[in-house]
């Protein structure tokens, strides 16, 4: 990604190439101020990164809707909460320790404690991998926080409709610290192992999608299948909700990918463009596959394809050309569609196909980066990808290493964490809780009400009482409107 770009620029890419980078651009238009001790952030770069951070935050509610629409109505709130709670829990995890583990200096595998509690993470600009960034350190930290939030939430789709809420919260908390943060350090962090190796991941194909996708599969298998009747109907309860979520994800993903440039400018623009193209292509190819195989282009297929395309372009978004983006989009729909078909053979219950879409899509995207990376797009690309003029397999090899590390960390980490929680407190909702639905059993609520016959008696302290008083003081059966 861009930060790496700078690292390598620092590490000796020709100055000419460097001229194309915002870092350099900024060096110019801020020239007069250069002397002044605390370099003020570039207002344009900061404006884009603030907007990007907000966009990525919005992806988590978007994901909640994308998943929620596919659930059955008795589990809608639980599925939404599995995403929303990550916005609360992971924020604190990141502030207290996650950011430090991921981005503080340290060893190639995790950072030291220097940034814990955001110590030394201030309003001024900062250096990463030896490069002078043009945005406030806090802005970079919060932008990265949004990535840390959505990643574990992605897992929830695979274990939907059967996991204890408490166990889920504990799981993502630990997972974020022992799987996500170290992986982020290796890929993007100060002196990270894969940074050094030269594996490329612009916006998180390995860190975000492969790690969550493989963890989702492992956790789904550990949890076991949902208890379903032989002919039980598990069709999505609200596909328009899934499409709204898809729209919000697509919108937010521009912050996710174009924001990963770490600055406004040409590279951000290029990432924005290929993101749009890959999502569009994958969505179209997915419904075309359906049109041919089942004669119907489905809305759920469109949504799935669009997300798969966004996943696949993520690691490549800062390194490939628009034409390559089309190839990546075509590829991911074929890969993920096939993966979902396979599920039936393997017979595990990945409720909403997180493995097929995120893990397989992420792997394809990471490898595709090795195929299509192009110096002309980003000077950080040392040697062009295998299929680009003058390219060879060097990068592809490094990408494979990155993929394997992400798979290993996700799988092992999940096995250990979930194994321990299972032993200690159990991770699976009881048969009865699952049957009545997780909304009532885990949260004491139902998603929808208001049928005239949908009735209950209020007994609790708050609202209840208030109206009860009223009722008491009322004419035979109606509350008199007592006004001042």
């Amino acid at each position, binding site marked *: 990604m861009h930060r790496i770009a700078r690292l390598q620029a620092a590490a000796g890419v020709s100055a000419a190439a460097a001229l194309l980078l915002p870092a350099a651009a900024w060096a110019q238009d801020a020239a007069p101020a250069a002397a002044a001790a605390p370099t003020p952030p570039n207002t344009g770069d900061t404006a884009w990164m603030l907007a990007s951070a907000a966009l990525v935050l919005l992806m988590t509610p978007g994901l909640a809707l994308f998943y929620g629409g596919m659930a059955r109505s008795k589990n809608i709130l639980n599925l939404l909460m599995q995403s929303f709670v990550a916005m609360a829990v992971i924020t604190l995890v990141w502030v207290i320790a996650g950011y430090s583990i991921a981005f503080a200096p340290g060893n190639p595998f995790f950072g030291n404690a220097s940034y814990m509690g955001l110590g030394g993470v201030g309003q001024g600009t900062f250096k990463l991998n030896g490069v002078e960034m043009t945005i406030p350190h806090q802005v970079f930290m919060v932008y990265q926080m949004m990535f840390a939030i959505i990643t574990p939430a992605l897992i929830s789709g695979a274990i939907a409709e059967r996991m204890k809420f408490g166990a889920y919260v504990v799981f993502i908390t630990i997972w974020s610290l022992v799987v996500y943060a170290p992986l982020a350090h290796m890929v993007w962090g100060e002196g990270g192992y894969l940074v050094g190796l030269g594996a490329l991941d612009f916006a998180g194909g390995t860190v975000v999608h492969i790690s969550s996708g493989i963890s989702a599969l492992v956790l789904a298998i550990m949890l076991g299948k949902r208890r379903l009747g032989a002919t039980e109907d598990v069709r999505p309860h609200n596909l328009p909700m899934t499409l709204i979520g898809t729209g919000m994800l697509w919108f937010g993903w521009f912050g996710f990918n174009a924001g990963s440039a770490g600055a406004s400018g040409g590279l951000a623009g290029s990432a924005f463009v290929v993101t749009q193209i890959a999502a569009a292509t994958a969505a179209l190819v997915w419904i075309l596959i359906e049109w041919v195989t089942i004669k119907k282009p489905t809305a759920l297929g469109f949504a799935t394809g669009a997300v798969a395309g966004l996943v696949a372009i993520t690691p490549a978004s800062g390194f490939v050309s628009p034409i390559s983006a089309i190839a990546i989009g075509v590829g991911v729909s074929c890969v993920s569609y096939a993966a979902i078909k396979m599920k039936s053979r393997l017979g595990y219950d990945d409720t909403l196909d997180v493995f097929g879409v995120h893990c397989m899509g992420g792997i394809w995207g990471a490898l595709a980066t090795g195929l299509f990376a192009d110096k002309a797009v980003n000077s950080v690309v040392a040697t062009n990808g295998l299929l680009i003029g003058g390219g060879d397999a060097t990068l592809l090899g490094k990408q494979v290493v990155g993929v394997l590390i992400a798979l290993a960390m996700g799988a092992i980490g999940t096995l250990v964490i979930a194994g321990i929680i299972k032993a200690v407190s159990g991770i699976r909702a009881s048969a009865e809780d699952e049957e009545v639905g997780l909304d009532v059993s885990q949260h004491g609520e139902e998603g929808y009400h208001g049928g005239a016959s949908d009735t*209950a008696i209020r007994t609790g302290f708050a609202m*209840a009482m208030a109206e009860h008083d009223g009722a008491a003081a009322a004419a035979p059966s109606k509350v008199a409107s007592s006004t001042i």
Partner: protein
Amino acid sequence: MIKIEALIRPQRFDEVKAALDAAGATGMTVTEVRGAGKQKGRPEFYRGGEYTVTLLSKIKIEVVVADAAAERIVEVIIGAARTGEVGDGKIFLTLLSDVIRIRTGEKGELAI
């Protein structure tokens, strides 16, 4: 002809339907209803206000059969719907004075 009206747990509906199909019931009509009986609901909470659900979701299945078949069908329904827990539901039987198939105008047992 007799109308068999069964109120069952939504969770048992799949089994009951499958059993009826197996038993060769030519048709049925299904309605989502809410029921009160011995069974009590789970508590719900909204802004600290606690609610006790007094009406629970139930499925009403209406099957019209020839008098001769009634007993057997009732057994089939009980077999598939029973859990032994409070809330299994009830079955009501009513005599119909006539049945007509709209498509053909056939009447009586022919129309079932």
